């Protein structure tokens, strides 16, 4: 480790940031992933400026059309512009969470789902890992029981039980995500709690909460960030599945999964576009996130 001459805290932070960026740059895989993900984030953020239509605008004269100058990706069976629906669909996934008709929160449905899962999962994992004993046993067996149910089935059960809405999709995603995150955080905690700085905190009489959240949690962030990226990918997948089965955003919301479901009927009649574009969108975003996560993981391991 070359000795840093900077004595200023801000500068040290900056060095850390450029280190992170150097890791990104040196991995081609991560860069490809980053470009794909940034593309989707960009179109989702600026969706209103990238299209002259709204996602609900129906053009009865032009249903089920292929790409043209007017509709660059074509239209669906109600004559809605597919490009518009696609990028507004990305908005729901990545940028806004519509809570009700009037209120929407920043941060997409997939991101919210993963963040909520992280909060709950990390807390459970920390408690189980640090406390050990019967608490650990209880938490982990409950989560194991959840993991025993097939994921798709679990999504279906949850969404069918509480109804289909963006918020409920968030709830479903987070409930399904909790066991995996808890397991990951628990295993990291088990390792970190044997370190001597934890002994030092204990001999200083720190409370268990302080040790878990101040001493242990920040040191789990590397693997957690990578895991979260992968999980956002899964969440997008899950949203697609739920939408396809008619359990996603209520229509007429531009939901990728339901777009595929609607467009499916017209594939054989010679209009595959309505199903093709959202499928490609889901695939590319998930692949992009996976590439990004894998690239960062590999690159950060190589120079450890």
């Amino acid at each position, binding site marked *: 480790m070359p000795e*840093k001459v900077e004595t200023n805290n801000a500068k*040290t932070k900056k060095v850390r940031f450029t280190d992170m960026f150097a890791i990104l740059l040196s991995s081609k895989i991560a860069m490809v992933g980053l470009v794909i993900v940034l593309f989707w984030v960009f179109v989702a953020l600026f969706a209103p400026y990238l299209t002259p239509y709204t996602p609900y605008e129906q053009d009865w004269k032009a249903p089920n059309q292929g790409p043209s100058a007017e509709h660059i990706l074509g239209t669906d069976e109600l004559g809605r512009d597919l490009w518009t629906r696609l990028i507004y669909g990305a908005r729901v996934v990545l940028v806004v969470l519509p809570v009700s008709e009037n209120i929407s929160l920043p941060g997409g449905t997939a991101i919210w789902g993963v963040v909520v899962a992280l909060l709950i999962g990390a807390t459970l994992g920390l408690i189980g890992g640090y406390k050990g004993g019967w608490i650990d046993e209880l938490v982990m067996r409950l989560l194991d029981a959840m993991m025993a149910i097939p994921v798709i089935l679990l999504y279906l059960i949850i969404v069918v039980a509480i109804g289909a809405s963006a918020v409920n999709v968030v709830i479903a995603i987070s409930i399904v995500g909790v066991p995996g995150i808890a397991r990951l955080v628990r295993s990291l905690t088990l390792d970190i709690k044997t370190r001597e700085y934890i002994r030092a905190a204990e001999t200083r009489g720190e409370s268990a909460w302080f040790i878990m959240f101040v*001493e242990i949690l*920040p040191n789990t962030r590397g693997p957690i960030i990578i895991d979260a990226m992968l999980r956002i990918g899964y969440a997008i997948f899950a949203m697609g599945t739920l939408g396809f089965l008619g359990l996603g955003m209520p229509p007429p919301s531009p939901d990728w999964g339901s777009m595929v479901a609607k467009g499916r009927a017209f594939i054989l009649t010679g209009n595959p576009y309505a199903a093709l574009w959202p499928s490609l969108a889901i695939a590319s975003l998930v692949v992009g996130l996976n590439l990004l996560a894998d690239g960062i993981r590999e690159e950060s391991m190589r120079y450890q």
Partner: protein
Amino acid sequence: MEHTSDIPVLEVKDLAISYQTRKQMVPAVRGVNFTVRQGQTVGIVGESGCGKSTIAFGILDFLGSNGKVVGGSIKFMGKEMVGTPKGELRKIRGNNISMVYQDPMQALNPSLTIGTQLTEVLTAHTDIGEKEAWDRCIAMLERVHMPDAANVMKRYVHMISGGQQQRVVIAMALLNNPSLLIMDEPTTALDVTVEAAVLDLIEDLKKDFNTGIIFITHNLGVVAKVSDRLCVMYAGEMVEQGPIDHLFANPAHPYTRGLLCCVPRLGDNLSNNRLWSIQGRVPDPAERDLNACIYAPRCDWRLEGRHLEDKSLIANCTTQHPELVAISEDHWSRCFLGRAPLKVPWDDYARGQKETVIQIPEGDDDLSSMDTLLNIQNMRLYYPEQNPSLRAILGLEKKSYVKAVDDISLKVLRGTTLGVVGESGCGKSTMVKGIIGLEELTGGKVDLMGINLNEPAQKRDLSLIRELQMVFQNPDSTLNPSYTIGTQIARPIQKFKTVPKRKVRQEVERLLRAVKLASYYYDRYPRQLSGGEKQRIGIARALASRPSLVICDEPVSALDVSVAAAVLNLLNEIKEGMGSTMIFIAHDLSVVRFISDFVAVMYLGEIVEFGPVSAIYPPPYHPYSEALLSSVPIPDPSARRQSIILSGDVPSPTNRPSGCCFHTRCPRRSVLPDNGKICEQEKPKFQRLKNGHKILCHIPADQLTELAMERGDERMMLSTA
């Protein structure tokens, strides 16, 4: 040494190895020259990061995807290895070069029996049948003095002890009768008594097999014991090379001299309180100035020009790269000073005087008149053993306990340092965990200035917690990597409110100064610090609450010698400056001797000997202390003395031997009638001697003294006078 053939086993000339990193090619090793002949052991010594292992990997061509030999030549039995195709190299290596690694647990496969792993070596390289291979492996195990070799073949790795594992690894390395054996820190992971046995074994093998050995280590004592020649590495360069006796008697390079001076010795005067330490640290490979003497920034001869009559010698140190110059026939040093340092005796270096030497009043053999800070009475700490059988779960079987600490009574006097020594697993760490409250006591009583300490730390009062703080062993895990140094030292200050809020930063800087670090360390992260610096921060953090008792759990055992010396000096200064009381745990007897006022020797959860440091190191000894002392490798090749090899393994603490806990391995019990029958039947009582010295043994103290003298331990006697 036997007759050496004309072709050396290995001839390394001007070897240079570089590693590719993200930014550039970084030279890791350069200018390495040495020759290994048959039956000769060449020691390579140096601090971590000096390229010792890189040389070994270079010879074996195991440099990995980013390492490359960029210059020089490696000739094995006269055949050039650099540039030879990989396939051919593999053949040569497999049959003729073997390697022994540091950690036997990692070198052996836990899922195969030892027999399978050993026979594989023979059947893979030759067309020997299974049966014959099996027999030859047993014979080889017997040659490395493995007890019960035939049975060991059928066992798995976890079923034998660490010392035996290392014997298996050595046997494995010798099976195909290699011409060259490379040993990379083969004894570093072992306890001293086991280390002594393994070193003896290596000595024997050298005579029997006529193999050339490269012995890599950081420990000067170990290398003095086994090597014929010594190469000293510094920052990737070979700085000095010569025959071992000559090199230890006349070290010419300032770095070699520095290294030799850094080590505390058993023979040192007890009133010394400073060790020589080399300033600065080993430069990172990417920062080395290739056109200057690599040691110049740390060299006391250049910086201070000590004893140097001709100052012109040091004119080129920072502008030219020195070449190896002959000191005498067969002894080279890479230094512009050449022979000049030889005129100055190397052991002539400043050593301070202890300001306070603990005086024990005449006749006070219980230490009752002294000011006791910590009083431990009959402390017991048992761990219930997990028994997975159904009967145990139903509560039908008697619960068994691991008796980590069994019935210990100790006093720690105010302002003194208590050293606790013993091999791994003797319960020394568990004892301090009990004191500091990380483990709950099973029985007994501990009090600090009259306040009971039996409660675990979470239940203790904050004002009590701040009185006891701890310094940890591993510099890499002692600090939380997520926070700056300042935040971490400030935390105990804020928690215990030692100073008002607005003065916290000032107080942190004061503590940084106290551990000899500049205040700009405040904003650094642990990963930007070297091991020694991290350890200093650990000390500063422990001192932040102004504790009355600091417990140091092996604080220097993971550090390089020159860094360890500086940390030991620091601890001594803190002790004298602040009058702190310390418990210092270590497995290294010379370190304990240097830093302690009192010493407790632990074996299997019990204290077997206790006394002031002046009484522990000369005879009479407890037989276990005697074995420990005799095993300490001494960095002086002329002092090759026979160490007492303890037979057998440390018994399991669940199943403690009856009577004296040491009787299963005691080399002295035969002097008692009936081959020490009493040792098996009756628990010995402490024999109280002068000045609080006490020994837990049935053999009378006078007889123990005689036995030690018979063995020729006069040197020890003299050194403490």
